[in-house]
C-alpha cells in the first residue's frame, strides 16, 4: 500500500517537475530574446557594425536569386578589379538559416522583410542556444543544473555582445551549433547509441557551415577522447561517440566549399586523425585482451610493441618531414596566432590590427561574465564529485576556452557557454546542499524524510522531493543501462544503501540558520548578476555603431552621418563608379551605397590593402596615380575631429602606413612620427603633413572654428590653409564625419615639360 502510494506520489511529482521545467524553459527563451532588444528600442531595427552588412547583402542576394545562383556567385562589386568568389569563401550557415526562415515565413504569408528577419535571427537563436545549454548540462549533472545554466546563458553579457538584435554575424548561429554539437556528443557518450552519433555529425556539419571556430570542436573532442583513454576510462561507448564523428564529420566538412580539402590537409585537423588511429589501437588492444589469457596477452604486447615501434617511427618521420616542409607547418595564420600570440604582430600586421584580435584586459572578464568568473572554480570542483566522462569533458572545455579567451578578446564568446555550464552546476549543487540541510532540520518535514530513507528499494535513488536532491543523485544514473542494474541490486541489499544514504545525508547537513542565510545570499548574488547583465545589454552592447548618439545639455544628438554619406553616394554617382576607402567601410559601402569598392572587411588580399594604404600615405600626385590605375572615381575618408568621434581614419592611419610599408618599402613608418610620437599638429613631420589622408581629412577644416582645433587629438592641426590639386571635395556630411572626394581628371595639356615621343 505504502509502496504504491509512494510510487503514485513520485509519478505525480515527476510530472509536476516536468511541467515546471517546461514553463521555466519557455520563460528563459523569452528572457533571452527580450534582453537583446534594447538596440531596437533605443535606436531602430537596423543592422549593426560592419560584417553584418556583408551577411545582409549576401542574404538579400540569396532571397532574390535562389540557392544555385548564391552557391556559384562571383561578386564583381568588391575588391575591384579582382572580384571575390562569394560562394567559395563565405561560411554559408548564417545566410542559409536566415534565408530559410524568411522563405518559410513568406510561404506562410507572413510578409516580413529580409532586413527584419536578419535583425532578429540572433535573438531567436540565443533562445534556442539557452535551451541547448539546458540539454547539455542536464546530461552532465541533472535538470536543476541544466535550468540554472540555461538561465545564466540567456543573460551572459559576453554572448549578448555578439548577438543583439541587429548583430547579424556568424556567431549568432554558431554558438548554438557549438553547444548543440557538444550536447549530442555527450549524449552519445552517455548512451552509446549510433543514432545520436549520426545526429552529432549532422550538428557538426551545421557548425562547420556557420563559423571558422569549428576547429575548436574538432580539436577539443579528440583531446577529450585522449584524456579518457589516458585516465583509463576507455569504453566502447567512447568508440561509438568518436569514430563515426571523425569519418562522417571530415566528409561533411569537406562538403562546405570554404573548407574543402583543408579538412584533410591542414594541421588544424590532424589531431582528430591522430586520435582516430590511437582509439583504434586501444580498441583492438582491449578486444584482444578480452579474448586471450593474461600470460598470452603479455606475449602479444611485447611482440606488438617491438614491431609497432619501428613502424611508428617511420610513419612519424614521414609526417614530420611533410609538415615541416611548409613554412607555417601547415597551420593557417589565424590558428597560429592563437597558439603563439606574438605571431600575428610579427608577421601579419592585418590580423594584429583588428581590435577584436587583441588580448582582453582583466576587467573585461568581470564585465563579460561577471559573477560567473568566481563560480567557475566551484563548478570545476563539483564536476569532480563524482567524475564522469561528461563532467571531464566540460572541465576540459572550460580550461581550453579560458586559455583561448586570454589570447583573443573575441574568443570570450566561446568561454561564455562553458562558464555558464560550470556556474550552473556550482549553483545547483550549492542550492542542493542548502535546501537539503533546511529540509532535514525542519521538524515537520523530517518525519517524511525518515520514511523516505526507510523505503528500501529506491530510497537512495528516486523518490525524493526536490529536483535539487535528485540532481545530487544523478551520478548513479549517468549511464542509463547500468543504473537499471543498480536498482535491481538495491532490491536485494535493502538495509545497506538506505543506512549509507542516511549517513551520507547527515554528513552533508549544515546548520539551519547558516543554510537560510546562505540561500538568501545566493539569491542576492543572482540578483546582482541580473542587474549587471541588463545594464551591460542596455548601455554597453546595444550600440549599432552606424548611428551614434550623444547626450548634451540640450537633449539627444543623433549622428547619422554614415548613412547620409552612403545615401549621397547611391543617389549622386553612377552605378559603375568605384569608391576607394579604408577596408573597414567596404562592406557598408557595397551594401548600403551599392557601389564597387576596392578593398573590404574580408581582408583576404594583403597586397591590395597595402596598395590602398600606400595611396593614403603618399603625397597627392602619387596617390592620384595609384587610384587612377585602379579606376577609382571617389575616395571616402572618415573624420572625427569636429565632433570627437575617436574611431576615424586619422587614428587608424598608422596601421595604413604599417600595412602599406609591409609590401611597398618606400613607405617607412618613422617618416610619419616625430621623435617616435604620432602627431598631426605643427610639430608633425612634412611627410605626414603632405600625405593624402591628412589633406583629405583636414581640407577646409579651418573654416569650422577659425582655429582648426581637432577634438579627438586635442590640438590644433599643423597645416591649416592648403588647396587640393588632384582631388575635389564633393560631399561632407553634416557633422563632417564622412568626407567624399572625387579624382580630378588629368589636365589636357602639360605645361612646361613636353615628352618627346620616340619615332
Amino acid at each position, binding site marked *: 500500500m505504502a509502496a504504491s502510494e509512494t510510487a503514485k506520489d513520485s509519478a505525480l511529482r515527476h510530472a509536476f517537475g516536468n511541467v515546471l521545467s517546461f514553463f521555466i524553459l519557455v520563460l528563459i527563451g523569452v528572457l533571452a530574446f527580450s534582453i537583446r532588444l534594447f538596440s531596437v528600442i533605443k535606436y531602430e531595427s537596423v543592422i549593426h557594425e560592419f560584417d553584418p552588412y556583408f551577411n545582409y547583402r549576401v542574404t538579400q542576394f540569396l532571397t532574390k536569386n535562389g540557392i544555385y545562383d548564391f552557391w556559384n556567385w562571383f561578386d564583381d562589386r568588391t575588391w575591384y578589379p579582382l572580384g571575390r568568389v562569394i560562394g567559395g569563401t563565405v561560411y554559408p550557415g548564417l545566410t542559409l538559416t536566415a534565408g530559410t526562415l524568411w522563405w518559410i515565413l513568406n510561404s506562410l504569408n507572413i510578409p516580413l522583410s529580409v532586413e527584419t528577419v536578419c535583425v532578429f535571427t540572433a535573438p531567436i537563436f540565443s533562445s534556442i542556444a539557452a535551451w541547448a545549454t539546458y540539454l547539455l548540462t542536464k546530461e552532465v549533472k541533472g535538470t536543476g543544473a541544466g535550468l540554472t545554466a540555461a538561465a545564466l546563458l540567456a543573460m551572459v553579457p559576453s554572448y549578448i555582445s555578439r548577438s543583439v538584435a541587429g548583430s547579424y554575424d556568424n556567431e549568432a548561429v554558431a554558438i548554438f551549433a557549438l553547444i548543440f554539437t557538444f550536447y549530442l556528443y555527450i549524449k552519445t557518450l552517455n548512451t552509446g547509441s549510433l543514432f545520436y552519433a549520426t545526429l552529432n555529425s549532422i550538428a557538426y556539419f551545421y557548425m562547420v557551415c556557420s563559423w571558422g571556430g569549428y576547429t575548436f570542436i574538432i580539436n577539443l573532442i579528440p583531446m577529450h577522447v585522449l584524456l579518457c583513454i589516458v585516465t583509463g576510462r576507455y569504453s*566502447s561507448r567512447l568508440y*561509438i561517440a568518436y569514430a563515426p564523428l571523425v569519418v562522417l564529420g571530415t566528409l561533411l566538412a569537406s562538403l562546405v566549399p570554404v573548407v574543402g580539402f583543408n579538412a584533410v590537409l591542414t594541421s588544424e585537423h590532424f589531431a582528430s586523425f591522430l586520435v582516430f588511429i590511437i582509439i583504434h589501437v586501444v580498441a583492438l588492444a582491449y578486444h584482444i585482451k*578480452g579474448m586471450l589469457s593474461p600470460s598470452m596477452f603479455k606475449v602479444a604486447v611485447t611482440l606488438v610493441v617491438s614491431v609497432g615501434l619501428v613502424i611508428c617511427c617511420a610513419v612519424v618521420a614521414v609526417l614530420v618531414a611533410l609538415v615541416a616542409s611548409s613554412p607555417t607547418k601547415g597551420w593557417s595564420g589565424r590558428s597560429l596566432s592563437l597558439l603563439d600570440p606574438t605571431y600575428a604582430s610579427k608577421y601579419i600586421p592585418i590580423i594584429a590590427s583588428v581590435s577584436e584580435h587583441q588580448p582582453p584586459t582583466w576587467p573585461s572578464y568581470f564585465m563579460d561574465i561577471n559573477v560567473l568568473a568566481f563560480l567557475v572554480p566551484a563548478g570545476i570542483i563539483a564536476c569532480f564529485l563524482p567524475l564522469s566522462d561528461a563532467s571531464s569533458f566540460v572541465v576540459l572545455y572550460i580550461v581550453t576556452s579560458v586559455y583561448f579567451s586570454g589570447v583573443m578578446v573575441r574568443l570570450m564568446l566561446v568561454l561564455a557557454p562553458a562558464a555558464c555550464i560550470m556556474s550552473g552546476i556550482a549553483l545547483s549543487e550549492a542550492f542542493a546542499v542548502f535546501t537539503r540541510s533546511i529540509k532535514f532540520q525542519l521538524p515537520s518535514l523530517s518525519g517524511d524524510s525518515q520514511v523516505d530513507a526507510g523505503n528500501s528499494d529506491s530510497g537512495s535513488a528516486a523518490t525524493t522531493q526536490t529536483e535539487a536532491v535528485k540532481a545530487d543523485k544523478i551520478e548513479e544514473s549517468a549511464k542509463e543501462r547500468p543504473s537499471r542494474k543498480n536498482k535491481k541490486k538495491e532490491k536485494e541489499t535493502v538495509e545497506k544503501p538506505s543506512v549509507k544514504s542516511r549517513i551520507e545525508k547527515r554528513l552533508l547537513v549544515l546548520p539551519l540558520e547558516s543554510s537560510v542565510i546562505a540561500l538568501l545570499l545566493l539569491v542576492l548574488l543572482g540578483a546582482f548578476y541580473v542587474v549587471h547583465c541588463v545594464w551591460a545589454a542596455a548601455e554597453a552592447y546595444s550600440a549599432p555603431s552606424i548611428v551614434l548618439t550623444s547626450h548634451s545639455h540640450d537633449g539627444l544628438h543623433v549622428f547619422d552621418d554614415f548613412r547620409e554619406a552612403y545615401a549621397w553616394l547611391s543617389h549622386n554617382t553612377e552605378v559603375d563608379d568605384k569608391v576607394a576607402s579604408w577596408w573597414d567601410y567596404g562592406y557598408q559601402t557595397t551594401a548600403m551605397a551599392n557601389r564597387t569598392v576596392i578593398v573590404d572587411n574580408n581582408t583576404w588580399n594583403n597586397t591590395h590593402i597595402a596598395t590602398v594604404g600606400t595611396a593614403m600615405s603618399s603625397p597627392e600626385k602619387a596617390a592620384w596615380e595609384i587610384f587612377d590605375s585602379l579606376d577609382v572615381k571617389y575616395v571616402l575618408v572618415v573624420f572625427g575631429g569636429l565632433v570627437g568621434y575617436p574611431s576615424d581614419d586619422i587614428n587608424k592611419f598608422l596601421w595604413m602606413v604599417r600595412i602599406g610599408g609591409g609590401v611597398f618599402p618606400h613607405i617607412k613608418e618613422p617618416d610619419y612620427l616625430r621623435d617616435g610620437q604620432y602627431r598631426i599638429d605643427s610639430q608633425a613631420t612634412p611627410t605626414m603633413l603632405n600625405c593624402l589622408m591628412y589633406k583629405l581629412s583636414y581640407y577646409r577644416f579651418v573654416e569650422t572654428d577659425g582655429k582648426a582645433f581637432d577634438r579627438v587629438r586635442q590640438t590644433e592641426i599643423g597645416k591649416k590653409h592648403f588647396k587640393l590639386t588632384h582631388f575635389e571635395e564633393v560631399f561632407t556630411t553634416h557633422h563632417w564625419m564622412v568626407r567624399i572626394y572625387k579624382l580630378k581628371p588629368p589636365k589636357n595639356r602639360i605645361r612646361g615639360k613636353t615628352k618627346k615621343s620616340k619615332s
Partner: protein
Amino acid sequence: MGKSSTAKDAQALFHSLRSAYAATPTTLKIIDLYVLYAVSTALIQVGYMAIVGSFPFNSFLSGVLSCAGTAVLAVCLRIQVNKENKEFKDLPPERAFADFVLCNLVLHLVIMNFLG
C-alpha cells in the same frame, strides 16, 4: 635461446588467438569479414591513387572515406550486437541494425554528393 623462445611464444600466441576467435558466434564473424572487405577496398584505392595520381581529389577522398566509414560503422554495430558486451545488454539487435542502416544512409548520401 631468446630468439627461439620468442618464436615459440609467437606461435603459442597465434594458436591461442586462433582458438579464441573460432569461439565467436557466426554473426560477429560475418561483420568482421565485412570490415575486412571495406578496409581492403580502401587500401586498394590508396594503392591506385599512388599509381595514377590524385587528380579528382574529392573522388579519392570520398571513396576512401566511404570505405573507412562503413568499416567504422560495422565495428560499432559489432560492439552493440556482441552478447558479451554488458553495457549494451538492453539494446535489441534490431535497433542496433536500424541505427547502422540510418548512419550508412547519411554517409552514402554525403558520399554521393561529394563524389563529383
